[in-house]
């Protein structure tokens, strides 16, 4: 068992300290750097919290292929237009693309998802 507080809480506290107390002390030309650090910490916290989406994605790919599927194979098939002759396969492939992209942005940039009208973007605690 790890010691407490957990890393997610420590990251949140560190981020608050950076933005609320240290940022006002920095010269204006370094403010952007502080925001970049805060953004990196927020990404790390969201990724550490995980959401199990990678396992879900592998499951979707296995279902899509009816056997072991990988993102490499999927990408190669899309390059070759492998699903273009089957509307249902093409639609299923697009569904995976949407879900992959939304899952990545929930961790990487939920603000961008929200700004584009995607709700439940994972902004809790920000």
């Amino acid at each position, binding site marked *: 068992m790890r010691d407490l507080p957990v890393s997610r809480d420590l990251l949140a506290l560190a981020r608050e300290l950076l933005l609320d107390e240290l940022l006002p002390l920095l010269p204006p*030309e370094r403010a*952007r*750097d502080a925001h*970049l*650090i805060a*953004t*990196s910490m927020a*990404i790390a916290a969201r990724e550490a919290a995980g959401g199990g989406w990678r396992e879900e994605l592998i499951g979707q790919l296995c279902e899509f292929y009816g056997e072991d599927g990988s*993102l*490499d194979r*999927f*990408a*190669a098939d*899309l*390059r*070759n*237009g492998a699903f273009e002759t089957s509307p249902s396969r093409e639609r299923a*492939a*697009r*569904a*995976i*693309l*949407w*879900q*992959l*992209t*939304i899952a*990545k*942005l929930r961790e*990487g*940039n939920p603000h*961008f*998802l929200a*700004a*584009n*009208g*995607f*709700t*439940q973007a994972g902004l809790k605690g920000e």
Partner: protein
Amino acid sequence: MAATALPRSEAGPADRQRSLARFLAEASEADAVEIARVALLPGGAIQENWAIDAEFDGGRLSGVQRLVLRTDSSTGVPSSLGRVEEFAVLQAAFAAGVTVPEPLFACADAAVLGKPFFVMRRVAGSALGRPITLDPALEPMRPALAERLGRELARMQSIRPPHVDLDFLITTGAGEHIAGFRAYLDGHPNPRPVLEWVIRWAETHLPDPLPPVLCHRDFRTGNYMLDGAKLTAILDWEFAGWGDPDEDIGWLCCKGWRFGRLDREAGGIAERAPFYRGYESESGRRLDPERVKFWEVMANLRWAVIALQQSDRFLVGGSRNLSTAITGRRATECELELLMLLDPGGIAEYAHA
């Protein structure tokens, strides 16, 4: 504090300043040039821009002059033009009536400052994207600015091959861009299925080609200067080349360059209509929405690849710069935009899932 010593070379700062003063005097036919101030200007990840205040004794620039010296930074990217070539492009744009800083002198001789550079007049204003898109004081002027940018772009496109002073520029059409994107992804460690799907779409939806024109290839908010609401300069010509007339239109309208105003599709400053109107009235060519959409898709692909290349500086090149490392994450923003452009039906299906 801004740096005040000219670009690194084996000579010391005072020697470099003397060397530059001699170069400026000779190039302008002045009896002497005294440099009063040198300061590195902010921005410029690929190039360095130095503000130079200098007094010319005689010659064609006699008097006090405010100049900018532009040279390579240590993080230059291989796909950009050299400074002497960029100077030639700037000269052609200036001659065509595009609003650019007047180009004055270029120097290919590394003995002067250690690397090639060129000198242009310094114009007033700021190019920072967010103030341009968000400052309430600019609100009533933004449609006119968008129209002006359309006119500027059309004027730029009056420069066409063959051009005796620009024979070093290469033509890059959609097919070459697509091949470049795929070559990059072939060497990238993570699969990018969205980009693969979209590149395939682009390959199968190539528009009929138009005669090539001069493309700026970074014509966007953040690369033009405003002094108040007045356009004073279009900057950063290092990616210029021959290409499709709609390539720069797609780039300016690409969502990545809207700086907090995603709803304003012309560079975050206005609707598309005034931008298109300015372009169409100056060029005499009516824009085809399908062609523009194709090039907007290409713009998002290109921005995604550039973003990934930025993080490669950390992943492969050993750079410890956080700003470039984190930029790779923006590729997924481009992928969302590409899905929204090419599968609009999916927005309703997934936006609230």
